[in-house]
């Protein structure tokens, strides 16, 4: 269990915190945030590699704020892997073993298991410089896991890897987390990774931890606009009062659900479009002008102007072709009221 109390850092151009964070044992916690939001600093403070300006860090009930990194049993995997260039793959993986107190046969079996799971058996004698990005990342993982850490810290482990190999490593991380008794804490700027891997996520922005909760919670009920934008709600509007009701883009919303000055958010993929007014029962339906339509992969991205508010909509390419939409023409858009998020 990791507990961080009122952790702060002061840098010349940047202030981090105060951060309060609680991570359960064996949880897979992902700290999400844009580049430069202070995520790596938090990891390094847990590993003891950065001295906090103030605040305390507890690992499994023990105050480790002043404990040297070598006595914390915390493994760390960096984005750039940081493999020891003068050692072979095997020497890298086994680097930490001699410092472990319980060098039993059991730990050797664990190590063999890790090497096997990560598919590194045939690379053991190689120099680390001969490996691909994905292989390097697996060596870095094996090296950190070899010491059987209580906590594994992952600093954007996927972003330096070619996209083709990213899903392999992702799957591997999921698998490792399921089989090992280790608590995983990973930082990333990609919310798809969080969606795939995390039990719990925290969103950090400009040094402030904006929201923590289960993946579903944070993605479906972002607490504020910053989190909303970060988890992919590209349609964010501020409803206006007209008479006794609140309106946005010509649509009336239930005044019970929100109040003036707050925002509503909609994901582009939750909106469907059509040339007629026929939408499933209970849908909120708006009318607008199709302004642009761009193909993207197997989907299509549209912008639709509804009474001055611009909606971004993702749709299925084939679906849209069938409906025969034309730019500049009137179009209907609809969505289930549950797809509207209030924050």
């Amino acid at each position, binding site marked *: 269990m990791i507990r961080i109390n009122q952790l702060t850092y002061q840098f010349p151009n940047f202030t981090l915190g105060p951060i309060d964070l609680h991570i359960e044992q064996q949880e897979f916690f992902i700290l999400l945030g844009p580049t430069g939001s202070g995520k790596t600093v938090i990891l*390094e403070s847990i590993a*003891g590699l950065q001295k906090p300006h103030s605040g305390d860090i507890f690992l499994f009930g023990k105050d480790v704020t002043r404990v*040297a990194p070598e006595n914390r049993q915390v*493994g760390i995997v960096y984005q750039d892997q*940081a493999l*020891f260039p*003068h050692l072979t793959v095997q020497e890298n993986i086994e680097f930490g073993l001699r*410092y472990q107190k319980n060098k039993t046969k059991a730990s050797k079996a664990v190590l063999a298991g890790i090497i096997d799971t990560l598919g590194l058996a045939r690379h053991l004698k190689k120099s680390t410089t001969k490996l691909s990005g994905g292989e390097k990342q697996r060596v870095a993982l094996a090296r950190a896991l070899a010491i059987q850490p209580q906590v594994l810290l992952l600093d954007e482990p996927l972003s330096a890897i070619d996209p083709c190999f990213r899903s392999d490593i992702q799957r591997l991380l999921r698998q490792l987390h399921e089989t090992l008794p280790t608590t995983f804490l990973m930082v990333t700027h990609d919310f798809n990774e969080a969606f795939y891997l995390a039990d719990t996520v925290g969103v950090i922005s400009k040094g402030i931890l904006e929201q923590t909760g289960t993946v579903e919670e944070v993605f479906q009920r972002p607490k504020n606009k910053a989190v909303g934008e970060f988890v992919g709600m590209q349609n964010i509007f501020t409803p206006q009062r007209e008479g006794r009701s609140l309106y946005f883009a010509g649509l009336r919303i239930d005044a019970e659900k929100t109040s003036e000055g707050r925002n509503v958010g909609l994901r582009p993929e939750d909106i469907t479009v059509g040339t007629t007014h026929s939408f499933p029962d209970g849908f909120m339906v708006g009318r607008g002008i199709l302004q642009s339509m761009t193909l993207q992969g197997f989907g299509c991205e549209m912008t639709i102007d509804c009474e001055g508010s611009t909606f971004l909509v993702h749709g299925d390419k084939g679906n849209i072709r069938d409906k025969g939409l034309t730019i500049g023409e009137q179009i209907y858009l609809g969505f289930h009221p549950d797809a509207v998020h209030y924050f």
Partner: protein
Amino acid sequence: MVLLFILLPLFEMVSQPSWNDLRETIADEEVRSAIFLSLTCSASAAAISFIFGTPMAYLLARTDFTGKKVVESMIDLPIMIPHPVIGIAILSLSGRNHWLGQFFQDIGIQLLGTKTGIITVLTFVALPFYINTAKAGFQAVPCRLEQVARSLGAGQSATFFRITVPLTWRHMITGFIMSMARAISEFGAVVIVAYHPMIAPVLMYERFTAYGLKYSQPVAVWLILICLVLFLLLRVVSSPIGKKN
């Protein structure tokens, strides 16, 4: 053209003395002992630089503190100060009317005209070359490697010897050789502190003033050959560093 300017004088000088002159010169007991003294004193100076310079270089490469620039400037000072001034400065300190000089004499250490004096002066001029090279080596090792080693359970000294040293020993050796070469080349500072015992550059100067150009050339050639050997060593050792760039 720049190369020519550097190489032509050296080449001409090396080619002027006859083989006979060279053979006679190296047979001269005085020349041999001067060259030997030069080599041992320079090596001692380089070794002292290595022992005291390594921690200093590591400190400068890894920490950041106010006034670091000032410290770095001070370490570079010996490169810039006129060589006789260095000799005079060190003598100033060791004179009998100075408390430190008095202390040194009480424990039997004398600088003027001794090997100790020569080594002190040579260390003074050699130190910056070692520190700067070693510092560059330490800076080339990413902090992250050391951090990861720490997180894997290695203490500070284990990390230094298992990670940092294996990745910087080339720089350290290069620094050692550079500081030794710099020490061998020194003349102005040594001539003030110790005319005797005579190191090779001083001997050469004496031959030049006493007998003229023709008699100093063979000694110069021998000295240059020794420097070239040192220098080749330096390049052989440091070449893999170059390849990395």
